[in-house]
């Protein structure tokens, strides 16, 4: 059970800042809904957990992340993450390439290309929900990422001439890992659509 995803998000910050954040794996993981780095093995190997929650369903994966490439030239990062869920019945892996492309001095695009592969029970029973869920995860990731780059921007502005190279230090703590919340996410994802249909009832 594989899904390919390619998404581009506009980031209201200079490419340098976004790239700086992208190089900070803990920081990146911090933007992943429900994800947490539990151990830094070395510069390119980490251990962590991801919790995915959807209605009554709740899967928590533990596994490893390997940084396969970090290319300053193209501002791109390639990660490979894999793990098994707490009951051992399911497994997942993700091959992710994230790239930062400057748009102008103040903004850039974050493009993520990933192939998510599922095995076990989750693949057998989750087929019907997998597309939407992966979508939600990426959207919230982008939202968190954007929030953090903006925070960095504020900070580096404050620190007068901030050296983007060192901008990765002293970041605000990654938002504490909350499991992906189906309700909040779906709400975010389809709010616009709902508004067009029914006004903003229930918002």
């Amino acid at each position, binding site marked *: *059970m*594989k899904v390919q995803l390619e998404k581009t998000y506009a980031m209201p910050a200079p490419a340098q800042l976004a790239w700086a954040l992208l190089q900070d794996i803990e920081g990146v993981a911090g933007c992943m809904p429900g994800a947490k780095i539990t151990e830094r093995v070395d510069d390119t190997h980490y251990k962590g957990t991801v919790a995915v929650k959807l209605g009554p369903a709740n899967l928590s994966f533990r596994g490893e992340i390997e940084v396969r490439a970090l290319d300053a030239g193209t501002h791109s990062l390639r990660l490979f993450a894999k793990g098994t869920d707490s009951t*051992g*019945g399911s497994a997942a892996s993700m091959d992710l390439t994230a790239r930062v492309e400057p748009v102008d001095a103040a903004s850039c695009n974050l493009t993520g290309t990933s192939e998510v592969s*599922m*095995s*076990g029970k989750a*693949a057998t*029973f989750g087929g019907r929900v997998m597309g939407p869920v992966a979508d939600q995860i990426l959207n919230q990731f982008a939202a968190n990422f954007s929030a953090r780059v903006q925070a960095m921007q504020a900070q580096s502005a404050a620190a007068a001439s901030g050296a983007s190279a060192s901008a990765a230090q002293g970041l605000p703590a990654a938002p504490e890992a909350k499991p992906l919340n189906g309700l909040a996410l779906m709400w975010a994802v389809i709010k616009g659509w709902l508004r067009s249909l029914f006004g903003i009832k229930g918002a």
Partner: protein
Amino acid sequence: MGDLSDLKEREDKLQGMGTSLLRKEDAKFIRGQGTYIDDIKLPGMLFGAIVRSPYAHARIKGIDKSKALASPGVVAVLTADDLKPVNLHWMPTVGADVQAVLADKKVHFQLQEVAMVLATDRYAAYDGAALVEVDYEELPAIVDPKKSMDKDAVIIREDIADKKEVGHGPRTHPNHIFTWEAGNKDAADAAFKSAEVTVREEILNPRVHPCPLETCGCVASFNKATGYLTLHVTTQIPHLLRTVLAMLSGVAESKIRVIGGDIGGGFGNKVPIYPGYVVATVASIVTGVPIKWIESRIDNISTTGFARDYHCTGELAADKNGRIKGLRFTALADHGAFNSHVSASKLPAGLFSICTGSYAIPNAYARVDAVYTNKAPGGVAYRCSLRVTEAIYLIERMMDVLAQKIGVDKAEVRRRNFVQAEQFPYTTSLGWTLDSGAYHTALDKVLKAVDYEGLRREQAAKRADPNSPTLMGIGISTFTEIVGAGPTKVCDILGIGLFDSCEIRVHPTGGVIARLGTMTQGQGHATTYAQIIATELGLPASDIVVEEGDTDKAPYGAGTWGSRSTPVSGAATAVAARKIKDKAKKIAAHLLEVGEGDLEWEIDRFKVKGNPSQAKTMKEICMVSHTGNIPAGMEQGLNAVAYYDPPNLTFPFGAYLCVLDVDKFTGGISVRRFYALDDCGTRINPMVIEGQIHGGLTEAFAVAMGQQIPFDDNGNHLGNSLVDYFLPTAMETPTWETDHTVTPCPHHPLGAKGVAESPHVGGIPCFSNAVIDAFAHLGVTHMDMPHNAFRVWQKLNELGVNKRSARRG
């Protein structure tokens, strides 16, 4: 004395062969008093839960038991490493291969057995299983057998990568198992070269599962003091299982007792020997306490006893009138990760060579190539004999393809190719000798019963009407089955011939106990065997007890599968009864002071010819046989045992016809009528036969219309629970019309043939032929099973049949 009403009364009292005697086995089942495997509870028993792989193909880098061992109630966690000391982490298969009992370094298919957690109860065991941490390194999986033998294909079985052969001739690729051939290829090729007409189709028999309502399981109990091993187990082959256990465990076969108990349906799923049985047995030997292992439904569909997965090509060569001159059938067989396919040693492709069916085909060639994939092993015969459904499906489909090609009616093309009644015994070009048959009679009776011409007229009218919301299909199947394995000269498993047995003991007051090597799973053996003995010995069936499945009590036999019970054990029963009858006759002659030649048999007694008042009833003889008043030199008692090695298999046949309607817009199919005529020779219990046919047809309907075990590219199951796997309910299941002719088997002591599988083997092609016939006028010659609405709709959509005419109403 002797008048007709008296004869009838005595006859009726026996309730012997030919009567629809109500089943003896029902009494416990209707009260909920059956003893199925999960009903068995022994003191101190532990429950074993199996840890399974989420990956279809992966290396095991490590297994961490610590969390599981710390879980409440968990007693032990067994892995391959724990079985190594006793050398039971791998086990030999009937396919001359080996199979991992618990995954050793690698998992080869999704949900493969990796570890067993032993705990004080089922809940604790499953909690523990969820806590066993296995570190995997995923490998690419091969799911499509057509890719197994690619040059760059990943090697599935590293453990035998350099093995030159797996039982059946040279391997041409590390993922190749064997290639089997039958018939004369040159003669067949020549027939195709000179043929006026040839047809060819690629036809799939998808991977399915017998899915009995009870899953597999066992309770293994080893007594350390006595060294005696008792295995309660869901098995169709208790005696062969005992022998294999002795070979595996080193425990003397005399100290192993296998007990079949009540079985909640088998349909082939309970023939193989599964890792769960072996781990539970080893665990009991090691711990000295009883171990229960019960499969979940998902594990059942995913890992034990799949069937089919034959990717076939059918070719027929014929003259322009449809008379067949040559046949070439080949199959690529997906055997999964280990070759534990159930088959007789000399028949790696089972009885696939019955694929000439009911037809006189002068030149034929068949070939099967078996390969490994990252799927579960253990291919079984799902309510059929070994690979017979695959063979008959192919020939019955191809008869339709040929008929469409030459524009001859599908019933007529069959008539033109049938083996003629006077040709029997008829030896096919692939080497089987069909003992008897009356194919024309059967087909004509069915066509008349359903008004075949009328149906074809109605179909023509529907086809002419563009506004008809449905397509009408008429399917025919005139199959010949091959059951009752089998003659030991052709059929053995692990060297043991597939004979079977019956031991009969007659008690002084006329009560009888009979014990057999077979194993009922609902077929009604306790009733039908008793009826055979009742007729043979003139003692009432009500006083005859039948026992099976306990290897300490029953004589050795190959068990119940492949519709072999009546053909083999039924024969053994008759032979044993006749031994007793011969002795009884001597005693009667002695008592009546006449020669044996002066006696004649009448229902329940021997009487003196011409002096009917002079007679001895069997009941009287039973008592006398236990006294001193028997012929000099004769031993007391009326007991006999018979081991029956059948001279040939039996060849039941039938003619089926199905009428159905396809909804043009949804692809949904509704079966309007299904008429099944079966000929199984002598009919022992018509009620039981009818019941077997209803069940077989229903399983055929399930296979044709919906069953399939689907996988994604990673080898993940996509439908391995009853959420998706199709078991029809009373709502979906059609109503069955049954009929019969009787053509006795010339070589069976009772003239009987097997029957339970005919409706499955003959039913599947009948459904498919009906579905495809609905599309025949649109040029469609084949559609693969299952014919579920989605797949049928895709064809409707492709042909544009589902478009409504844009007329404004």
